Structure formats: C-alpha cells, structure tokens
C-alpha cells in the first residue's frame, strides 16, 4: 500500500518566503476516490484562490484540515492511498 501525504506546497512560490492562506473549501471526504487532476482543496490567499489538484489516483484516507483553518507551506492537508 502506497500512501501519499498532500501538503500545502512549498514549491508553489519557491522564492517567496512565508505565506499563508485559509481553507475555504474541501472538495473531498474520507473514502472518496480521486483521479489525477481532481480538485482537492481551495485555499484563499490575498490575491487568489489556489485550487490544489491531485497528482495521484487513489482513495482519501485522512483529512487533516477543516474549512476556515489557516495553513502555510508545508502544512499537511490530506492522505491519499495511491492506486498502484
């Protein structure tokens, strides 16, 4: 079983230091199947809403955040069991 943790990407703006945003929508629930490209979560920052898409096909096993939470680069969002 391969598990992949989805983080708020540090690589999003690699040269910007600290930034944070608010979770405004979770697009998945525990047990949902997701495919590559499916939206997982929406994070609102000052200028934009980041719609983070899945890089994996799999099943959502854990969700570590809830709507309204403030998150920053490196924070865990959810855990996906990846289809092999």
């Amino acid at each position: 079983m391969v598990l992949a943790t989805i983080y708020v990407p540090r690589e999003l703006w690699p040269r910007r230091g600290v930034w944070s945003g608010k979770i405004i929508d979770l697009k998945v629930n525990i047990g949902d199947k997701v495919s590559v490209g499916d939206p997982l979560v929406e994070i609102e920052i000052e200028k934009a809403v980041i719609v983070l898409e899945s890089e994996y096909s799999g099943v959502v096993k854990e969700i570590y955040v809830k709507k309204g939470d403030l998150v920053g680069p490196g924070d865990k969002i959810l855990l996906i069991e990846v289809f092999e």
Partner: protein
Amino acid sequence: MEKIRLRIRLSRDYLSVASLVKELRIYTVCEEALCPNINECWGSKTATFMILGKTCTRGCRFCYVEKGSPEPPDPDEPRRVLEAVERLDLDYVTITSVTRDDLPDEGADQYYLTVRLIKEKHPEKIVEVLIPDFNGRVELISRVVEAGPDVVAHNIETVERITPMVRDRRASYSQSLRVLEIIKRINPRIITKSSLLLGLGEDFSEVIEAMKDLRRVGVEILVLSQYLRPGPKQLPVTKYYSLEEFKELEKIGYELGFSYVLAHPLARTSYKAKEAYYEALKRKGL
C-alpha cells in the same frame, strides 16, 4: 473583490521549474506578480525570468511586485539565467525586470549582459525582453537593443487619460510610446510588442485610440487582458470584459494592422510568447 483562481497541480515539470529557480536564486515574474498562468507555464517547463532583483522603484497602482529600495544588481545573475535557460532547454526565452530608477544605467547593462550571454552561446535561441521605460533615455534603450533580442516589449499598460492614476508618476503614456518608437528606429527588424490591462476605468473607444497609437509607432504584437486586482492596496477592477468584447478588440486589432493580437482575460505579456512571435512572423510573411 473577485479573486483569481489558480489551479495548481504539482506535476513533475512544475516542480522541476520550482526547484530550479530556487536553486539558482532566480526571480520569475510568474511568482513575484502572482501570475494566474503559473501552473500552465511552469507545467510546460517555461517561465519568465525577472532580472535586477525583486524590488521595483516605481509604485504603479495595479502591480503586485514589491516596491521600495532595491538591492544592487547581482553580477552573477546573467550566468544563472543562462544556466536556467540551458537546464530548462528553452528555445524561446522571456526576460523582464523591475524598474531601476536608482541605478545610473537603470539596469540597461544587466539586460545587455544577460541577452548577450544567451545569444553568444546559443544564437539559435529566440530572446524576448519586456523592458521598463528607462525614463525614455535613448542610450539606455540602445544598449538593450544592441544585445540582439528578437522581440522587445514595453507596456503602455492603460489608455492615455487614466495613465497618471494607474501608473507611477514617473511613467507616462507618451514616454512609453516614445520608447517603442525608439526601439524600432534603432533596429527596425526587432519585433515590438505592448500590452494593455483592461478594467481600470477606460472606455472602449479609448482602448481603440491606444491601439491606433501603438500602430503609429510600429508595434506589431498587441496583448490585451483583463486587470485582476492583486490585493486591497491595488486599484479596484472597474469592469470585467466579456470574451465577445475581447474577440471584438482582437478583430479591430487585426484591422489596424497588428501582426498578432492576443486578446484574452488571462493573457499576459509573456503568455504564449513563442506562439505570438511565430504567428507574427507568419503574418508578416517572414
């Protein structure tokens, strides 16, 4: 305030660009201006490099790039940009910068060195620069042109009437037109390009006037896009243009004689720059 939606998928290509710019300490306008197309561009392994630091000496009221007192130019920056170009295997390179009113040469030499380095090592690569107005100083504009870029872009950003409200007081509509005119005068073979952001308070007829002004100074590639407010400190959006309106402006642009018109809400000056360049060449019959 309606916000830009950035779809982000951390694909292998996106991550390769991200790790490269971090490792090489290169600024990109994609990141510094929070460009809405970052996912598409980085996901297809292209980026627009921003030289001369990340701090701009101008205070244009639509722009998200950091304003203040910049650090001195980094003499190693041209080499790192070249390395990024090589490692990303870019055949079309787009370079821009902040405005550097604080430097005696306003950054013209850094442009020269960066473009020359790329062109000397890879003459086959197409280089596009998006330059500041250099306060209209001919010798500085000449320095950039001498380096041999294939495309030189300079943005008028908005229509004449509201320029004083939208751009920094040191920028002016007529000065920007003059910059574009000077580039063509120095080297008529260089393709020139300019952009307008729509939704800052202009009238439709004023946009057409601006387009005519750009044609008058020989601009060949026109980019029209929707202004999106980056944050509460920037100007509010006065109007969201429909796709039909963009289509109409595109048609008018071609009627006015532009070789290529990119009119789309999310278009930005360097967006699909390679396609714009080759389309412009094709329409010019080159």
